[in-house]
């Protein structure tokens, strides 16, 4: 190894040593920062856990049921579940169950009932059960046929 190589090697060593020291302090700083963030994360984690527990406590079914009853809310019962196809038919069915008194030109009074046009495949008893729900008779509209009773 000639003197020039020796000098280069010495310089490289010095540079490497300086880099290590710089790096060392940078790493230490980053480590401290990471630790602070980790602590913050932990604190937030436990805050979140507490918030979740509180939320779950507040929305436990027992409490919700008690509050719902105070607001006159009722649970969804099976009677309130209908086929989507039946939405819109309800008024026809109600009309069918509430005869209309009509005066004929002759002066006679007759009661008219509207017979709903059943879509194919619908069960007659299902229609009747839905029609039994109490509600005020709606105005006579929609695709219905009026027949004399």
């Amino acid at each position, binding site marked *: *190894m000639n003197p020039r190589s*020796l000098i280069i*090697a*010495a310089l490289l*060593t010095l540079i*490497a*040593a300086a880099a*290590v020291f710089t*790096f*060392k302090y940078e*790493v230490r700083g980053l*480590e401290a920062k*990471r*630790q602070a963030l*980790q*602590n913050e*994360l*932990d604190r937030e*984690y*436990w805050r979140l*856990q*507490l918030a*979740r*527990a*509180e939320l*779950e*406590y507040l929305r*436990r*079914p*027992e409490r919700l*049921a008690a509050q719902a009853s105070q607001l006159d809310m009722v*649970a*969804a*019962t*099976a*009677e*309130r*579940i209908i086929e989507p196809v039946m939405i819109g038919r309800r008024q026809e069915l109600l009309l069918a169950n509430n005869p209309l008194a009509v005066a004929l030109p002759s002066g006679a009074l007759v009661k008219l009932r509207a017979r709903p046009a059943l879509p194919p495949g619908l*069960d007659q*008893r*299902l229609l009747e*059960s839905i029609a039994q729900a109490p509600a005020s008779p709606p105005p006579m509209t929609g695709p219905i046929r009026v027949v004399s009773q």
Partner: protein
Amino acid sequence: MNEPSAGGSEKMKPVVCSRGRLRLVGVVFAIGFVSLGIRLVDMVGDNSRGAASAAAAGLGETPAIRAEILDRRGNLLAGNIEIPSVAADPSLIGNKELAAAKLAAVLRNVDAGELAQTLARGQRFAWVKRQISPVEQKAVLELGIPGIFFVSGEHRIYPSRQLASHLLGFVDLDNNGLAGVEHALQTRLSGGPRGAAELSGRPMQLSLDSRVQHAVRDELRRSTSSFRAQGGCGIVRDIKTGELVALVSLPDFDPNAPQTAAAERRKNRCSGEVYELGSLFKIITAATALDSGAVTLWDKFDATEPMRIGKYRVSDYHAKKRWLTVPEIIAHSSNIGAARMAFAAGGKERQLEMLERLGLTVRPEIELVERGAPLMPERWPDITTATISYGHGIAVTPLHFVEAVSTLIGDGTRIPTTLVKREPDWQADGERVVSDATVRDMRWLLWLTAAKGTGENGNSDSYLVGGKTGTADKVRVGRRGYQDRAVLASYVGVFPMEAPRYAVLVVLDEPKGNEATFGFRTGGWTAAPTVGRIVDRIGPLLGLKPSKDSAEAQFEARLEVRPAWDGYHSRTEEGFAAVRPSG
């Protein structure tokens, strides 16, 4: 020739010497570079030392946390919060007695004398009190005693309180499960000792539905209160998947403070206690008989007189005193008919084989530590075959029975019961127990009993329910025989009957009749209406479409095959007369 070489050798000496020095310097440099390289890698690549030191200081990485328990819809059933505990380094405390007295004054349930003794032991660490409240923490801070410090720790909480107490169980101060799922799945919940690191901290999702659980608990509480029962059990099981959707045992307790509950309250009546379930077992007897091929649905059995077996007599509570078909035996709950059916099917061998195939002879398989062992007869003479046919002489847990019924009414295969939510791609791989034909007959028999028999009070307004009532005399504790005035009333219901999906079992321990039941305390009057109300409430929650009107016709049609049907007497006490010595 030698001189020049000798002179040359003298000249070469400094060169050799300088080469040696250079090598030495080179080696030093090489060592230096290698050391620096190692140090660089050490500093940049390895962060674990920092983490380790932080962990040693009680900070740093998120601690290993016990997995949360969720219901099937993701609602939190058991979680964790951070709670401080008070600890001391006694070597730093001057007047230990004074410090103990001051601490005991602000910390609840801490005895000054005991604490002073603990501090006087000369250790470097001692617990003062585990898991303190924020108010207590503030008070301790204000005392400002040197050597007293706080250690933060994880604390298990159950936000839904009593909702699923028996099912969830509870943990000790060190978060070790002591009961229920917490104990049975301790390894999974704590992350596991080895090989389960990937599970650590991952929530555990149960098959339980909090809404259904609440509805069942609500109705069961109403019934136990109304009939002044000692306790009760309510189970809802998914027939197709084997998942338990609800499991309620009353009386219950708050798992946040289990130490305040009496042992009786902590008793899991659904899976940990065994009972003689009485007439419910006639379902198994009928299935055994029909599946054996030796008995058909319309075979008749003589129930005109009580049946004598040795010195014993088997009788019906309300005897029909005539020959009965299989549907009549089930619907009238005839003990004599059930016993004769059991013998016709093959007696003890066939009966025991069916009980084994239904899993009624071993502890139930479920993720709970409370699993009652069935009480089987030591000897199995004919009288035992007879009594077991109507549910006496064998004691099983309600959980056992609901699984057995699910097997017989489902698709005839036995699917293990579980409390853990099944994966969406889960495929049933059950063992076949009875044939499809037997399943069809059993469904019809249960519908018949609910529609026109003793289970009439267990019907739903919206869903087609099938079921069977049971009323069993309670066994005397510590003595032979049965109690005179204490019964176990039960009803198992299955719905929707046209495509059975859920089995609901309600058991009431020692119900008393009231005005509404005309004094009757039988399963048909007490447990059956409870099941009916539960079905009405949970059906919409479980996404089931009301189908009673459209589905009933197919069951009615089968009844019309036998026009000679004589009707039923559903308003009577069903037969549950225990076998007593005729003498």
